[in-house]
């Protein structure tokens, strides 16, 4: 176990480490930090009627407005949650009714938790959902479809607008997990035509502990997941997490599309490919900050640990309930077989330093040379 102190000492080194695990958690944006601090100084409960309470409520409603504007929803149709896991669960709970559930094969675990009674929509080798298959399922009756906008492991984007149009043609409801896309590329619920959208604060540079579910005006939401107290117009009980929500909104306001990161990402990808890596999801439209690199024959966890020792923080697929190192269900669904246990995810944070690609290239080459001496040597000599 590495102690907190040890980490602090290391982080004080002059630009030694590079955090390239933004899809697990983005570094907090300074604007968000400032907003958190202000909100921490506010005493009131946003539901109290006195001046203190009204102050708190103003922060809450301003945040709601900021998010609604940015993501194309009406403020009164935005419900703050503790995070995206709750938002996804809430969406499926509220919108399910008597509909059959259809989920994408590469969804996040918070959606896959419902897989037992769902139809799984297949994906192609790039990780893109197969809409022909969806159409034939939609013909069979009322459905709730859950499809993510951008995949957390590969960055692959789904054709959401097309999916939404298809769903609406058949009277189906579409829920979109937009966690990894929001703040990184333009996302608007109304423009996409979906019925609901789940967002996470800490995946776009806000603090941990806040998320949101946005509902279109015609989303047939029926019931809350967490009851009691009547907050959020009865859609979510519990005192809202004011500082986290204030930071969430400030991060949203500060987030700009991540095109700058595409150049760095491409350089990282090229460096890995030179060492024999395969880019999972290549050929699909992808998030600019994400690449998923499989190194044939080398276990993902060994790669992650070796890179960590070299000062590069990446992950083997989703962070979630750590410890577990299993083959990625995302890559398995893409038909990558054994490679599904041999891929790392590199995801650049909003504040990635320009020398991170070079640092990664050096570290990756050393890692590959150590873990795959024969092949890496051959590649280096080529």
């Amino acid at each position, binding site marked *: *176990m*590495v*102690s*907190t102190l040890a*980490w602090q000492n290391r982080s004080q080194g002059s630009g030694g480490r590079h*955090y390239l*695990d933004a899809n*697990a*958690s983005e570094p*907090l944006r300074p604007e968000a930090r400032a907003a*958190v601090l202000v909100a921490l*100084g506010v*005493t*009131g*409960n946003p*539901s*109290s*009627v*006195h001046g203190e*309470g009204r102050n708190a409520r103003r922060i809450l409603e301003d945040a709601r407005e900021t998010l609604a504007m940015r993501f194309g929803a009406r403020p009164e149709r935005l419900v703050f949650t*503790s995070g995206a*896991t*709750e938002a996804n*669960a809430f969406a499926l709970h509220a919108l399910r009714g008597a509909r059959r559930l259809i989920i994408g094969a590469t969804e*996040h*675990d*918070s959606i896959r*938790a419902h897989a037992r009674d769902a139809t799984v929509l297949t994906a192609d080798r790039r990780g893109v959902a197969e809409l022909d298959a969806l159409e034939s399922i939609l013909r069979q009756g009322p459905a709730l479809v859950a499809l993510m906008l951008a995949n957390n492991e590969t960055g692959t984007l789904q054709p959401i607008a097309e999916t939404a149009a298809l769903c609406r043609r058949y009277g189906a409801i579409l829920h979109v997990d937009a966690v990894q896309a929001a703040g990184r590329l333009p996302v608007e619920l109304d423009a996409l035509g979906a019925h609901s959208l789940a967002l*996470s604060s*800490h995946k776009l540079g806000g*603090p*941990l*502990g*806040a998320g949101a579910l946005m509902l279109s005006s015609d989303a047939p939401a029926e019931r809350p997941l*967490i*009851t*009691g*107290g*009547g*907050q959020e117009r*009865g859609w979510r*009980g*519990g*005192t*809202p*997490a*004011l*500082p*986290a*929500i204030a930071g969430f909104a400030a991060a949203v306001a500060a987030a700009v599309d991540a095109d700058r990161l595409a150049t760095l990402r491409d350089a990282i990808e090229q460096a890995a490919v030179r060492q024999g890596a395969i880019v999972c999801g290549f050929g699909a439209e992808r998030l600019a900050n994400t690449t998923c690199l499989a190194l044939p024959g080398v276990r993902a966890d060994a790669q*992650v640990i070796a890179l960590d020792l070299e000062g590069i*923080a*990446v*992950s*083997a697929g*989703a*962070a*979630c*309930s*750590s410890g577990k190192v299993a083959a990625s269900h995302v890559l398995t669904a893409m038909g990558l077989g054994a490679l599904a246990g041999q891929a790392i995810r590199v995801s650049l944070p909003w504040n990635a330093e320009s020398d991170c690609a070079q640092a990664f290239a050096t570290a990756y080459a050393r890692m590959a040379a150590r873990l795959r001496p024969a092949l890496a040597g051959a590649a280096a000599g080529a």
Partner: protein
Amino acid sequence: MPDTALPPARPNRPVYLDNQATTRCDPRVATAMLPWFTEQYGNPHSVEHVMGLAAEEAVEQARTQLAALIGADAKEIVFTSGATESNNVAIKGAARYAARTGGTRRRIVTVATEHKCVLESVADLAEEGFEPVFLTVGADGLVDPDALRAALAVPTLLVSIMTVNNETGVVQDIAGLAAIAKAAGTLFHTDAAQAVGKIPLDAAGWRVDLLSVSGHKIYGPKGVGALFVRRRPRVRLAPLFSGGGQERGLRSGTLPAPLIVGLGEACRLAAAEMEEEARRIGELRARLFDRLRAEIPGLRVNGSMAARIPGNLNLTFPAATAAELMARAPELCVSTGSACSSAEIEPSYVLRAMGLSEEEAGRSLRIGIGRFTSPADIDYAAAALVAAHAGTVVPA
């Protein structure tokens, strides 16, 4: 006394006496959280790299701090987004798990004066085929143990009784009530959101199975709470939502490390300062109550004064409504009852359950004295309430 709690020479304006609705985040808690909002931004589940490990370690330290405060083992603590979620998970989770695994007990016993989220969770379960039973309380706000025994004559799945009421501050005898439930083979849950840090808690010794905790009621941040889930014998719950499998599958979602660090620090401070703080706050309450009683004949206190946390007063005024008092003393932050879905200023169902008429409940105020209340604040509050009650508008 900690330096941050030094009383100001003049009253804070406005004077905040609504500490059962929420509390100011203690500056020491904010300080403890700060690094986790800035340089230490790792995901506590990313244990493959050092940043994630550091966050995980901080989360585990907070878990230990919280466990120590409530008399539990760290392994028995599940972090949530707050007490409302904890109560939802405890009540719905216990009932659904039992039903799913073939349990035949359907009765769920709770109390009419519970927090809304407990009552609504039980109501949700009624729709799923469970049988809710609501116990009443006496004028003192206390549950009659014999009434609980009688309700348990029918084999019962779960009893949920709050440790401290959020409107009256009345403290139930949880150890005694839990013993009755245990004797009947029933699970026992207590919503301790208002009790943690105010009175000593002993989850293990009291033999409760489930206990809910809130962060922002104990000078910690909003957006975090916890649920104690007994391990020996192990209490099984169905999660409210899944995915990711964090918190041993009981509560999925990335743990908000900064908020959890804040909750842990709030618990550490409460453990260290509870005794001294209770004494100090108790003196402030006595000072306020004595002044009000002396100058407002006919003033009544709702609920037992003996079985009550030191910081709470719930008072029925003889000649003015709560709304009038609050309008005439706008610089005094008090409330008519639970905050929750405000705007609705309707007479408190808690007070109604204690036998007050709707009209009497409408003349009642909840006053919550807290860590940052100064003697000067109390003097201001006493003067303002006396004046407001006499019909005077207190200038800002």
